[in-house]
């Protein structure tokens, strides 16, 4: 793992034709190992589905929900997955607008991750609501007495924010895929060619198509940028608008957005590093890319540490008895392990990335990313479960005990995510053919007359 090619190997080696070849060879009949992984994931998913079925059969009590712990692990995991879904659009929209060229090699994988993570998150309100056959009640339409949903409720904002985010992420993802699918079509034969031909919408890369495409893509990026920042802010309002001590804070919106980006980047690393190894994408995902992602992870970690400190400070400085008691209970009562575990995973472990060598070391990066994912799940757990465990009056205090049912559903949600992702990388280009070519040197006959392309 230490024999990595030089950081700018891509600039000297790969040609445009190499890109097509290297991406196309990842698609097609996979090996036995792939099927073994798929079976394992499918089996885990089946356990999750069985648990959900059981929960629907016997009722939501199967998930260990007792007052005051009505949100418990489902909403924890819901917020966790929404957070994971942040890095993709951040990389594809925000970094696109800032013209960060290193994004090109990772953005397709990150975008796929976003779409699948939001699809996973979207299951949780249904699971959590119990009677999921009434899920359509979430939609804004009047009931038989012409009573509409309460648009002043953060839960209704959430429905709008999440469904907009899912729709726009999917649109952005598909728009980006179209020219790449055309490249697959031109290489395929038989029935595959027909399928790809339909999916590519007959894309030909003519100047007429590109001019509208480029404009539209830029505008989509411009619209998605504020959306990225707004979605997790709105999710944070689910908490911040309530009066529960530890939740009622103006800090929550930026705190959630930063945490989301932090965990999203960790997930990108968890997915991209094995892909780089398995697909042999060393010329495209170089040390420079790893370094850039590690730096972003480090920066978001430091900002998060600042927010954690702020949270404790404001609780103390407010002089509010309940705020102080809430923080004290989190740090020293039955959930103290989650509180200190969160500090360890999110604040201490990423500090390793301050060392330059650690930022390009694959093993270190992977381990740090796993810790970050655990830490970010613990953070959401810390907000929700200990928050509700210790609010205003001792008689409403209560401890939550997980059950086999809800734990199985949560493990199943990871399986659902990975089954989507594993399926995707075998049928679609998980490295953007078009965008990777953009950062390679353009073919010129008279290089000198042009002064070279950056």
């Amino acid at each position, binding site marked *: 793992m230490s024999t990595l090619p030089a950081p700018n190997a891509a600039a000297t080696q790969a040609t445009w034709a190499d890109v097509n070849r290297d991406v196309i060879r990842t698609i097609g009949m996979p090996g036995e190992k792939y099927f073994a992984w798929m079976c394992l994931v499918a089996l885990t998913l089946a356990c999750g589905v069985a648990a959900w079925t059981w929960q629907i059969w016997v009722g939501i009590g199967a998930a260990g929900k007792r007052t005051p712990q009505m949100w418990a692990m489902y909403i924890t995991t819901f917020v966790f997955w929404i957070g994971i879904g942040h890095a993709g659009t951040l990389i594809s929209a925000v970094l696109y607008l800032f013209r960060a060229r290193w994004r090109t090699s990772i953005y397709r994988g990150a975008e796929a991750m976003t779409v699948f993570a939001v699809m996973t998150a979207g299951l949780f309100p249904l699971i959590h609501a119990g009677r999921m056959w009434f899920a359509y009640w979430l939609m804004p339409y009047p009931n038989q007495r012409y009573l509409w949903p309460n648009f*002043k409720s953060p839960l209704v904002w959430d429905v709008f924010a999440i469904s*907009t985010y899912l729709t726009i992420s999917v649109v952005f993802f598909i728009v980006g895929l179209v020219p790449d699918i055309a490249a697959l079509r031109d290489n395929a034969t038989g029935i595959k060619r027909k399928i790809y031909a339909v999916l590519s919408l*007959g894309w030909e890369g003519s*100047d007429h198509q*590109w001019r509208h495409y480029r404009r539209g893509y830029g*505008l989509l990026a411009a619209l998605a940028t504020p959306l990225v920042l*707004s979605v997790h802010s709105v999710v944070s309002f689910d908490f911040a608008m309530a009066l529960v001590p530890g939740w009622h804070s103006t800090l929550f919106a930026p705190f959630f957005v930063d945490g989301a980006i932090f965990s999203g980047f960790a997930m990108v690393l968890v997915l991209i590093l094995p892909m780089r190894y398995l697909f042999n994408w060393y010329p495209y995902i170089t040390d420079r890319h790893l370094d850039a992602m590690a730096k972003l992870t480090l920066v978001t970690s430091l900002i998060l540490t600042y927010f954690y400190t702020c949270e404790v400070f404001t609780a103390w400085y407010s002089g509010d008895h309940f705020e102080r008691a809430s923080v004290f209970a989190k740090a020293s009562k039955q959930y103290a392990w989650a509180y200190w575990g969160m500090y360890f995973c999110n604040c201490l472990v990423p500090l390793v990335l301050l060392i330059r060598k650690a930022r390009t070391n694959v093993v270190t990066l992977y381990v740090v990313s796993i810790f970050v994912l655990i830490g970010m799940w613990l953070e959401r757990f810390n907000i929700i479960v200990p928050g509700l465990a210790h609010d205003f009056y001792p008689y409403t205090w209560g401890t939550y005990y997980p059950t086999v049912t809800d734990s199985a559903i949560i493990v199943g949600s990871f399986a659902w995510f990975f089954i989507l992702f594993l399926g995707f990388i075998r049928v679609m280009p998980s490295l953007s053919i078009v965008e990777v070519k953009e950062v390679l040197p353009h073919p*010129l006959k008279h290089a000198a007359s042009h002064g070279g392309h950056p």
Partner: protein
Amino acid sequence: MATASVLGVFAHVDTTLQAIRDLRAKGFSDLTVYTPIPVEEIEHEVEKVRPLSAVRLFTLVGALTGTATGFFITIWTSLKWELVTGGKAPVSIPPFVIIAFELTILLGGLASALAILILGRLPRLKPSPTYDPRFSVDRFGVAVACPDDRIDAVQAVLSTAGAEEVRR
């Protein structure tokens, strides 16, 4: 007069650019340029004679429709039953801004995607006769529509500019 189309296949950005300039200078303006990726220099040359793409108009109309819908639906439904919830007046704008914002982005984004399809004439059911599968790998194409009697002239321009292959 009958028209024909001539295609020149190029391997380089600069030769493609040269061909476009030469063809324009000779008075051929009905060009289709195929590129594997959007290339800024070529785009700049081709866009010189065209108005700006109208995608942004779609986006603007979509986004404004979203804003209007967001405010309309929230205000109108609040006025149907004037209930005080959360200690706020039935019509209280700050919470409604969130709904309006989300719908602005939603409809603006969908309109932009629709514009790419409508203006780019997608989906395209049949491949155009001048398209070549190499154009999605690493070759550039310049297709010229011209009257039958000027085919030779076009072929000459394309070859001189440095085309790898010229065909009708």
